[in-house]
Structure formats: structure tokens, C-alpha cells
């Protein structure tokens, strides 16, 4: 060993020691529940009825992975016979020639066109609670490759356990909510930012002053309602986004870092140094063999922490070592490639809180991804985590950033009002009733802010854990911020983000757990292409 190398190893040892003082191993941290590791798998663009509308009854055509419900499987608030055969979206003449009942999407129709999922269009589709204008307002059916299913009013299509087989099997063995909603209406970026802060107010634009991506909040600031790019991120540029900017205010990463809890956001394509057949750097793509489309691996506006100065890793710097993952004081600043999660866990460095985002072609978003590619991602991740020695102390939450505009019949009661001209849920310029519906404040705490109409559309929400209630469906109204609340309650002594965050009032997800029990719900390994149970997993991992 040369002197220089010796000196640098000493420095590394000191660096590690310094980190070690700040963060404690997750198993040594006091927690309110037996959960020492939370893995949040944040998928893209699915409504509850789109995946679970006919749960637990699948059509089971010959040649497709079959699904038969276990005895005693609870019912869900899904598509009743009346909603299937006499749906208000078929009856409402405003839908014109697109008027349609819900219909089954076959497994061969996994790749579909994308729907409209804007803040305003989604509100219009719910039509004040009648939920009968989806074909008209969100059923645009745009995007998607030449082999995608483009049928008119595809927005009314639903999959069953022959296509989303893995999710139906997880629901059978673990716990699910049929009353989980987005915090607000609108697309990916507000959903992702909401997941980590419970707050989409506090937007600062770095491009034009006015845009359809945000609204004036009524207090001199802005609320983000659409997918403007994170200007701090080197992969966000003007070719990709007309509008770019940043978030002010705090997120859960700030709180976890301050408390010495290890955490990270792990996203496919984040490591810009990896070259594949699909290229390298920010423009790396992977072609789905199902959607037959090349999608960029890394999508900047799906990475919420890159919007905040305190938690951004603008140049996508790499962690010093697998041992540094999850810890502060490292160049990566808690933002990693998906593969870093697997490396850290293998190294015995399973962070306390890990947010996982698939490479885009496996994120489930119609138009460039699909449920079968998403299933590959989900099963490979869950199989991997179930094989970890930390599994007995782990919970995996699977939820979504938005609904894509896919039909769902159940609107939540309006919990947070907004009165911007882009609000249309209760009438033109209105979401809720002024003076009656609660309206939270913004990051400055000055008074009620606009642009946060919610809860938004209903989405799937599952808990996979030895502590999950087996084959259980919870009906407590929860939102994306309920995950935030669980983190705060479990590791931070119930400390809240503040500044008008939804976390304080979010419903609890603990109903899906049985913490009084023994944590003995068995593991379930699934085949990564069929989603059906297997005795031993393939040990393949997503790229």
C-alpha cells in the first residue's frame, strides 16, 4: 500500500465514522411500530377501477395466467353489475360517440394509448361527483406507439387478474385499500412532490412568469398543478420542458436527515454513467418488448427531491460506496440509481426509508409503459426484498402518483378547496364550497392557497409486509400523504412538515397492518412475467 492510498483510506474511515455518528443503523432506531424498513414503490398513472374494478373475479380466458380468489376474499368498492352494464358514462349524451360502458382490456391489450390527466380535465371528468364525463374529458387517447390499443373511449377499459396478476395476488396475500386517493388532481409532478411533502404550494419558476403548469395561489405565490421540469436537475432542459422551476418549503427528506434516519430515492436511469444499447446519460432509453416503444429510462419530473435545493443531487453524483447509501454527507445527497438500492441491501445497508421508481418503460404509465412491464418490475423488487434478512421488519407500500385519467367511479368527498379559474369540480372556478370546505394554507402560512383541489382520483394502494393483514381490504380514506404521515409517526415521533402540508390530516394506513400480531404473514414469490406464485424467485432484478 502506498502512502497516498493509506492516507485516503484513513480519510475514508473517518468519513464513515462521521456518517456513523450522524445516522444510526435502522434496526437500532426507535420506531413506533415493528417496521424498521419502509419501501415505497411509486408507480405511474393508474386508477383503482382500472386495475381492481372487478376484483376478485377475473375472466380467465384459456391461455392467460388464471386467477381464482381464495375463499373469504373480501369485496371491494369496484364496478358493480349496474356500473358495468348501465354506466353513467354510457348514458351521458355529452360523451357523444365516445359514450361507453366499462369493458375488459385483455392481456393482449396491455399496451394502450395514454389518457389526459390534467388538473382541470380530471375535475371535469368527475362532473361534481357523477363521474360520468371520462370519455369526454380524459379519454383523449393520445400517445402510445403504433402497436398500442387505441380504441375509442379506451379510458373506460379495465384490466383484471389475468393481466395485473401480481397485484391481485399481492392483494390476496397481503392488504389493500380501496379508498386511497391522490392528494390533488393532476399529473405526475404534483403527485410525486405531494408524496414527499404533502404540499404542492411554494413553486418558484425559473422560466416564464405565467404558465398552465401552475396557478397563482392567491397569496402572492404559486402552486404547481402540472409537470414543469426540475430546473436544478442536469437532465431537465428546455428541449424537454417549456417550464422549469423549483420547490420551496420542506420535504420529508429534510426531516429524516435531521433525525439521523437513513433514506433515499432510487430511480431507474439516475446513474448517468451507465451506457446501454439505448444510449447513455440523460437520454438513455429502453424499449419495452410489450409496448414496443423506447422510453427514456430517467424522467426528471418523476423525481420529487430534485425540485428542492436541500435534497437535490443536480448532477446525479454517485455515492462513495454502497455503505454510504442512505447517509448524509455523501455527494449523492440521498438521490440514487435504482441499482444502488439493490447494492445497498446486499451490503447489509438497507435504508430505513427507500422510495423506488422504475425505469420509465416499467413504471406502468400508458403510452410508453404497460401493466406487464410494470409487473416485471414489481415482482422482481418484491421478491428481492422478501429474500432480505431484514424482511421480518420491512413493509412495502405500492401506490401511484396519479390516475392517468383512467375511469374510476368513486370520487372522494372534497377535503381541500380551491377557487382558481382552472378548478371545475364544483362549477367553473370552484372546487368545494367557499366558506364551508376546508382550504389549507401554503408554505408561507399566509392563508388559504389555490391549486390544491383534492383528494384527487382514486388509485390502487397495497401493503406487502409480514405485518400486513392477510387478504384484507381497508376502507379508511387515505391519500399519498398518508405514507408521509406513517413515516413521521414511525420514525419522527409524529413530527409534521408544517406549512399547510396534507400530512397532519391524512388518514392512517395502519389499518392495513396487524401490529398486535406476530408479523407472520408469509412471503409470496411471484413469477416476473406471469405474476403467478412460484416456489422460488428468479433472482432477476430490474435494470
Amino acid at each position: 500500500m502506498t502512502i497516498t492510498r493509506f492516507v485516503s483510506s484513513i480519510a475514508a474511515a473517518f468519513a464513515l465514522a462521521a456518517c456513523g455518528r450522524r445516522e444510526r443503523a435502522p434496526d437500532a432506531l426507535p420506531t413506533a411500530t415493528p417496521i424498521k424498513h419502509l419501501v415505497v414503490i411509486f408507480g405511474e398513472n393508474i386508477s383503482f377501477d382500472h386495475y381492481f374494478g372487478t376484483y376478485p373475479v377475473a375472466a380467465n380466458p384459456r391461455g392467460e395466467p388464471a386467477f381464482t380468489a381464495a375463499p373469504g376474499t373480501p369485496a371491494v368498492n369496484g364496478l358493480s353489475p349496474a356500473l358495468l352494464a348501465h354506466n353513467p358514462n354510457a348514458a351521458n349524451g355529452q360523451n357523444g360517440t365516445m359514450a361507453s360502458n366499462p369493458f375488459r382490456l385483455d392481456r393482449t391489450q396491455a399496451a394502450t394509448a395514454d389518457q389526459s390527466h390534467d388538473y382541470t380535465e380530471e375535475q371535469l371528468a368527475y362532473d361534481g361527483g357523477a363521474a360520468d364525463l371520462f370519455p369526454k374529458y380524459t379519454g383523449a387517447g393520445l400517445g402510445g406507439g403504433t402497436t398500442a390499443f387505441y380504441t375509442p373511449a379506451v379510458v373506460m377499459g379495465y384490466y383484471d387478474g389475468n393481466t395485473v396478476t401480481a397485484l391481485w395476488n399481492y392483494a390476496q396475500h397481503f392488504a389493500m385499500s380501496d379508498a386511497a386517493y391522490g392528494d390533488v388532481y393532476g399529473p405526475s409532478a404534483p403527485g410525486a412532490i405531494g408524496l414527499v411533502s404533502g404540499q404542492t404550494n411554494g413553486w418558484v419558476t425559473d422560466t416564464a412568469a405565467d404558465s398552465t403548469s401552475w396557478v397563482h395561489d392567491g397569496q402572492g405565490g404559486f402552486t404547481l398543478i402540472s409537470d414543469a421540469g426540475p430546473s436544478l436537475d442536469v437532465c431537465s432542459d428546455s428541449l424537454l420542458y417549456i417550464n422549469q422551476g423549483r420547490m420551496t418549503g420542506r420535504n420529508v427528506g429534510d426531516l429524516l436527515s435531521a433525525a439521523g434516519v437513513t433514506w433515499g430515492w432510487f430511480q431507474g436511469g439516475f446513474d448517468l454513467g451507465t451506457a446501454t444499447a439505448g444510449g447513455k446519460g440523460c437520454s438513455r432509453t429502453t424499449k419495452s418488448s410489450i409496448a414496443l416503444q423506447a422510453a427514456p429510462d430517467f424522467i426528471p419530473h418523476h423525481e420529487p427531491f430534485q425540485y428542492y435545493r436541500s435534497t437535490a443531487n443536480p448532477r446525479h453524483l454517485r455515492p462513495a460506496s454502497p455503505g454510504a447509501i442512505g447517509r448524509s454527507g455523501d455527494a449523492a445527497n440521498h438521490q440514487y440509481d435504482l441499482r444502488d438500492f439493490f447494492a445497498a441491501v446486499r451490503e447489509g445497508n438497507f435504508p430505513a426509508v427507500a422510495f423506488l421508481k422504475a425505469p420509465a418503460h416499467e413504471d406502468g404509465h400508458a403510452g410508453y409503459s404497460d401493466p406487464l412491464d410494470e409487473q416485471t418490475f414489481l415482482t422482481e423488487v418484491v421478491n428481492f426484498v422478501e429474500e432480505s434478512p431484514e424482511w421480518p421488519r420491512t413493509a412495502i407500500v405500492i401506490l401511484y402518483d396519479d390516475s392517468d385519467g383512467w375511469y374510476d367511479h368513486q370520487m372522494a368527498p372534497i377535503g381541500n378547496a380551491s377557487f382558481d379559474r382552472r378548478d371545475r369540480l364544483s362549477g367553473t372556478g370552484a372546487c368545494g364550497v367557499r366558506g364551508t370546505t376546508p382550504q389549507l394554507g401554503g408554505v408561507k402560512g399566509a392563508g388559504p392557497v389555490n391549486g390544491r383541489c383534492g383528494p384527487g382520483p382514486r388509485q390502487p394502494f397495497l401493503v406487502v409486509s409480514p405485518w400486513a393483514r392477510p387478504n384484507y381490504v381497508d376502507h379508511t380514506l387515505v391519500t399519498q400523504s398518508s405514507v408521509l404521515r406513517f413515516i413521521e409517526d414511525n420514525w419522527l415521533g409524529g413530527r409534521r412538515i408544517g406549512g399547510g402540508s396534507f400530512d397532519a390530516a391524512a388518514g392512517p394506513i395502519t389499518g392495513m397492518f396487524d401490529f398486535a400480531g406476530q408479523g407472520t404473514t408469509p412471503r409470496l414469490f411471484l413469477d416476473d412475467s406471469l405474476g403467478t406464485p412460484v416456489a422460488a424467485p428468479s433472482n432477476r432484478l430490474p435494470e
Partner: protein
Amino acid sequence: MNAASGGRPHARRAWLAGAACLGLIALTGPAAGAPQPGPNPAPVRLVRPAARPLSAMARIGRDLFFDPRLSASGRLSCAGCHVPSRAYGPPDGRSAPLGGLRDRDEGRRAVPSLRYADRIPAFGIGPDAVVEGAASPVSLAQPGAPPRKVAGAAGASAMVPQGGLFWDGRAASLELQAMGPLFNPAELANRDTAALARRLEAAYGPRLAALIGAPAVEDPRRLVYEAAYAVVRFEIEDSTFHPYTSKFDAYLEGRARLTAAEARGLAAFDDPARGNCAACHLDRPDAAGRPPAFTDFQYEALGVPRNAALPANRDTGSYDLGLCGPARTDLAREAKYCGMFRTPSLRNAATRGVFFHNGRYHRLEDVLAFYVLRDARPDSVYPRGPGGRARRFDDLPAADTANVDRADRPFGTPPGAASPLSARDRRDIIAFLRTLTDGYRGAAGSASGHEDDLAPGAGLHHAAVRLRRGG
């Protein structure tokens, strides 16, 4: 030269430089020059679509594809024009197919091959639209448009139309493409959705209901779209639509030897100073190892002579202008795209009896002659006008002739000058094009390892022949 035709050749040349370098590495090693006869000195591994048993939906699609009951005449099926044994291209040398109520109406365009149609990307004019959430179906949900910052993307800085189904790209998907002939009065000629749905429900209702539910089958509109998508599944899943079993594929993989003529033809095909064919008809595997598509899926105005054999052309004031109409309607005001049609793949071109969008030519020799003589000897390509001069680009209104590509070789030869392609070059290129025909089984007659792909094709051929005989 206007902006449209000026921008594109530059992009093409830039791309070509890259393609040529890649080709040297991928095909013959960095030190080698033009392709030589014999085996590929640097074989590559080609990635083909995985073969799986057909799904129930695709099996329905296969039956629909060969079913003449889908036509108003009761005699024409999809396979009548897209003949399996001819690479899902036209059955004969007729410029445009006959169809309609009495099988007597002739369309305006040559039948494109459906083989390898799964490779055609979504229509877009690149560099594609800026992504922004406000118009949210786009919020990065549209990588269907050409990838933005991907290395090797052709003409990344030029506004180049590409992709989409039909000669003019007006169908956004294979499903919407399948709908076109069903309702075209000169093709399958169904009067309306209800008429077709009645026939579909009687013949396929129960099988489709098992997949999409009974209420959807009772909705005529939905039933028709589902049937069209079933046909798409047949096209996607059945390996006869993407076999990649040509001699050239085998050569790329080191399993076949090029003859001297084929090797010279490939060299002329690639040479930017001679054929320059590979500038548009890409002949290298892509980065993921997929076999070459022999098209860049982009649009080009070639100025092909008017085809007097088409009944529609008896109206001298009527023009088929491709991207800007009349079949396509959304780009009618974009004069810079008038006369542009999508570049087809050259795979299986040697099995076709009709070439270009208007079916003007019927032999590869004549196609090559057009490329060579269009600018050097226009009077041998175009009819003579009143003054005895050739009426160049006579299938375009005068105002649109500026869109014709005059810069890319082999075009641009001054009148009277010698063509960059000799007569032998042309013969050699045709010899090379014949290596692009699927079904190569090796010099010794040994199967290439794709006999499973070929066998069903042969069966489909027989089915198609039966149908055309009125079976």
C-alpha cells in the same frame, strides 16, 4: 431549393457519415473497406422478436385476416391484398388493387407490405414537440414521437416527418390502419360500423365476448375496433410478419456468403457517391441488435412520374400529394410536405410487382433506372409536354415541385451527364436486393434455423390462394 428540401439532405449526409463508420465496425472490422464476396468477416448477433404461441386474441385476428365475409362483396379479405406468400404485399403487378362492392373499383395507391409494419414508429415531425405537463397527454407520455436526444437519431436538428401507417402516415396505429381498408369504398367497402358489426357479431361474437365481455360485443363501434385490434395482435404475434430470414440477415450473422455481384451491389448501395441507398434504406442493425429495417421511416418527395394506369389520374387536375392530402387531411396547409411519402422498407422488395406510392413501376430494373435517369435524362422518364420538353415531376402541381429531393445521390446529376451508377452497379444492386427476401435456407439447402417461422407462412399462402379463388 426550398427550406424543406434543403434541410433534409444535410441531415441525411450527417447521418450517413455516422452510419458509414458504424458499418465498418459492425460489418467488416475497422480496417476493411468495401464489402467483399464471401462470409461476413465480423458476424453480429441479431435480436429477433421472441416467438410465442398465438394468444386467443391473435387467433381471432388470424381468422379475421383471411375472412372474406368482412367485405361488402363477400369476396375480399385482408389477405387478398396482403398476400402472406408475398411478404404480405400485393398479389400481382396491378398498380392499385381492385375492390369495392363488385371487385371492380381500383384504388389510388399501391399495396404496402404489412411485413415488418411493427417496426414503424408513431408519426411525428422531429425534433418532436417540447414536453410539458400542461398539455398533459404529452407529459413525457409521448416517446412515441421520435426520441429527442438519442444518439444516432436521424436529422436530430431538422424538422423531418417520420413514421405513421399508410404511405402518408395518417393512421396513428396499426389498429387505425386496419380500419381504413374495411371502410374504403374501393377496398372492403363496408357501408358503416353497424353493417360490419352485424357480420362480426354473428361470426366472432362469442369468441370476443370471452375476452372483452358481452356488453362490449353488443356495442357495434367497440366491436369493430376490437376486431381491428385482434388483427393487429395477429400481426404483432405471428412470426410470419417479422421473420428476418433473408440471406442478408444470415450473412450479417455469419451464416451465408455474398456472391461477387451481391457484394458489389452492397458496396454501391452503401457508397454515398454512387447509390447512396443506405442513407434512407438503413442497412445496419440498430444499437439494440435488431436487424436492419431498410428504411429510416422518414418522408421524401421523389417526383415519381404520374401513373396513367390509375383511373383516378384521368382527372388531370387531381393529385395525390401524400402528407398534405387529399387522403391525409391534417397537414393540408403544410405546402412544404406536399408530394412526400414514407420511405418503405426494401426487405422483400424483389418479391413485389409494383413500386412507389402510385404503382408507376413494376420491375426493380425500372425503379433503379428512375433514380439514375430522373435528373440526367428526364425525357426518358417523363412524358413530353407541348414544347417537346420532358414534363418533369408531372405527378405534382408546379408549385410543389420545389419539394422534390434534388440533392441526395443518386439524384442531382446534371442533364446529360453520366450517372454515378453504372449499368453494372444497377444490376449488382438488384442482386443485393434479392438477398433481402425472407426464406433463405442456405446454399446447401439446410434450414436456417427458422423453419418454424416459414412453415406457417406457407400454410397461410395456401389459405390466401383459396380465398382469392372465391373459397
